[in-house]
């Protein structure tokens, strides 16, 4: 085993990912090569330092209550979907009835038609903006 190969395998050894067959020649090399032995000791030190890095953790209570909060949120989303969906259907039905009814005054039909048209225009502008924004996305190159 040469030094280059040994240095590559030292990492796997430290990570406990080296097979027995690969470990034996590495140990033999380390017993005779001082430079690789030093590299091994340096890598152990680096490994310990990286292991010792801690990030700020949420409280135990947050971990404990997370699943409950999650399902409350999921139920809330379900409720919202039903509510908004039904509301839109009701609105569409009411508009339809309003337009087909011969009793509705023409001026009212024009005003409500204008409101509906305005809403559709605003919605399409918003969708177009989102599409343009996604085309100029700074994170486009990020591998997902």
């Amino acid at each position, binding site marked *: 085993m040469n030094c280059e190969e040994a240095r590559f395998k030292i990492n*796997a050894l430290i990570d406990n990912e080296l097979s027995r067959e690969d470990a034996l020649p590495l140990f033999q090399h380390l017993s005779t090569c001082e430079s690789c032995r030093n590299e091994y000791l340096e890598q152990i030190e680096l490994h310990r330092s990286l292991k010792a890095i801690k990030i700020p953790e949420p409280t135990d209570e947050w971990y404990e209550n997370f699943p409950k909060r999650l399902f409350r949120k999921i139920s809330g989303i379900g409720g919202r979907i039903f509510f908004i969906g039904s509301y839109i259907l009701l609105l569409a039905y009411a508009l339809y009835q309003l337009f087909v009814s011969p009793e509705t005054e023409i001026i009212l039909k024009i005003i409500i038609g204008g409101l509906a048209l305005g809403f559709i225009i605003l919605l399409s502008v918003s969708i177009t903006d989102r599409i343009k924004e996604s085309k100029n996305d700074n*994170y486009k190159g990020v591998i997902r």
Partner: protein
Amino acid sequence: MERKLIIAAKKGDREAFSRLVRTYLNKIYKTAYFFLKNVDDAQDVCQITFINAYRHIKTFNETQSFFPYLYRIAKNTCINHLRKKHSIPLPDPEQIESDPEYSPEQTAIKNYTIETVNRALARLPENSKEILMLKYWNDLSYREIAEALSIPEGTVMSRLFYAREKLKNTIIQLEDSK
């Protein structure tokens, strides 16, 4: 065991899904914190990640590991979060602490090293930081990292090797410049 939980969760068993959540919550939190560098944002991302996982669990293939699936959702959620904020978080070495379990003698060496290691880590390319995060914060094996990043195990090994080499060289540069 995990497979049974996934099958049960696919049938709508909330308790089974809760157990999966408890198993992976800490790892997902660490992943989100790595990308966002903010506790509150990371907590929000955890919630969005598990909601999305729950919504799409019926299409998940239970013969595969669950963590890579969650990892990809969490990473995408973090990217969307950053996109909304229009900013990339700067590394925050102040918030990262040393492990209190070390003996005082060891801590003296480590505090010095950890500060330098942190500064050096902040200077690494994103893919090097990401693979070190998966290895050290999430304590994943090469196989698990390979699944999470959709790359071969050999590539994990070489990326980790080069990430550590870069880190070591950066530490040396930082110490020389003192």
